[in-house]
């Protein structure tokens, strides 16, 4: 990892976050959507014990759906006016491009997850306990990194040409299963849902971390080929 590569990645990420700050698409559209999903889950499952027990899973389902939209937005920025093409003509390092896009995506998702966790406290009564806070934060961070890497890989492929947007959920959802499972169990342990102990959550953080690293490394290597056309 050269210094130049990291610097390029930081610039790409900063640019993505600046675009969001100016356009507010995520804040004005994706965030309300995720909140709505959380509310709709309550309609589907009814009140009572079910909602409280499934809160961790519902949070991550909402995150997963929102990730799909956020990934699409992340690459719509690049393809709307041919910016990705310009970056390719300019020979911008695809590894740096991958890291930058994934990092920006991770930042956006972390903000989203924070809001959704807060919403879960209000809507589902999912109160975090003091001893689970560290687990909660590490689970959220590792799951976010995994989702961001995964989303960037397949988002890049889907951004390559017209008519590929529909491919994104088909490619992401099956391989996102470990993230959904791991993050849900991690949060369950952190919140103490079903009287789970905090210690039960740590293997899942391990799984999520391994996933994030494996997908991140292979994505960085594969990204150049996937965005080629």
């Amino acid at each position: 990892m050269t210094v130049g590569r990291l610097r390029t990645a930081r610039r790409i990420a900063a640019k993505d976050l600046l675009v969001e700050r100016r356009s507010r698409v995520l804040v004005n559209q994706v965030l309300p959507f995720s909140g709505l999903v959380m509310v709709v889950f309550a309609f589907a499952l009814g009140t009572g014990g079910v909602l409280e027990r499934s809160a961790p899973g519902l949070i991550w389902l909402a995150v997963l759906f929102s990730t799909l939209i956020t990934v699409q937005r992340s690459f719509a920025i690049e393809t709307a006016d041919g910016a990705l093409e310009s970056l390719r003509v300019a020979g911008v390092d695809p590894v740096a491009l991958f890291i930058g896009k994934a990092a920006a995506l991770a930042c956006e998702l972390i903000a989203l997850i924070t809001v959704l966790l807060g919403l879960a406290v209000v809507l589902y009564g999912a109160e975090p306990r003091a001893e689970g806070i560290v687990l909660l934060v590490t689970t959220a961070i590792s799951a976010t990194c995994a989702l961001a890497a995964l989303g960037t890989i397949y988002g890049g492929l889907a951004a390559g040409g017209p008519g590929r947007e529909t491919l994104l959920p088909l490619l992401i959802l099956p391989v996102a299963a470990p993230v959904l499972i791991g993050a849900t169990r991690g949060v369950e342990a952190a919140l103490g849902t079903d009287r789970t102990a905090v210690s039960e959550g740590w293997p899942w953080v391990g799984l999520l971390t391994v996933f994030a690293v494996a997908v991140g490394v292979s994505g960085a290597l594969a990204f150049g080929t996937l965005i080629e056309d």
Partner: protein
Amino acid sequence: MTPTTSPQPTARRATGTRATRVLGIVTLVMLGWLLLFGLVLSPADIDQGDAVRIMYVHVPTVWLAYLAFIVTAVCSGLYLFGKRHSLGFDRVAGASAEIGVVFMALTLISGSLWGRITWGVYWQWDARLTTTALLFVTYIGYLAVRGLDGTRERRARRSAVIGLLAVVEIPLVHWSVRLWRSLHQEATILDTDLDVDIDGLMLFTLFSGVIAFTLLFVWLLLHRTRTIALDDLLASRGLDRAIAERRAEVSSSSPSGGGS
């Protein structure tokens, strides 16, 4: 006998050769043999009764599906890292994935019917079943990526990358699903596994099934790879024609000396 000066190009052969025809006949015989032993001659299991007969098609298809995906992964690697980037490997990878998806679909169908008999439900969120289902969807995605547009080489490269990414992701999916089930053991009667006490004739029948489906896999792989090769050849020949046509545009619409 009319003497021909030059051998006329013939186009009578499809994707078969004498070898594949022999292989095809042996495969058919073995499949018939499997039906005979699986449905009639092999005994019913003590616990499972006749339901065990589904095993003779269920287990071979899932093994061969896994083998097919391994072939896809190996050929993707050979294409990507080989010095010549031979499209032949890409064709084998694509053909194998298609066959794998077909076999895995059969696994899921026969497995759910078997489950309906032994567990009373078609589906159970058991680690093995869940991984299999996710694998199935993953390779449907792989085939969708193969169908995307682009030049032949770019398509091959992209598919190989997706094929190798699946290899990275599959163990993680499997690991997570296993961990999930082992930590969330539901103590119900549904937990009986599909394991059976296998006696000699049953083992023999299962073995026949594996051989029959292996032969079938090889036969299908040969034919499908050759079909893809034919299509590639036709595409490149269509290209030569298109180039000629495109050049003909030039003489027909000769520019009226617009330049100087």
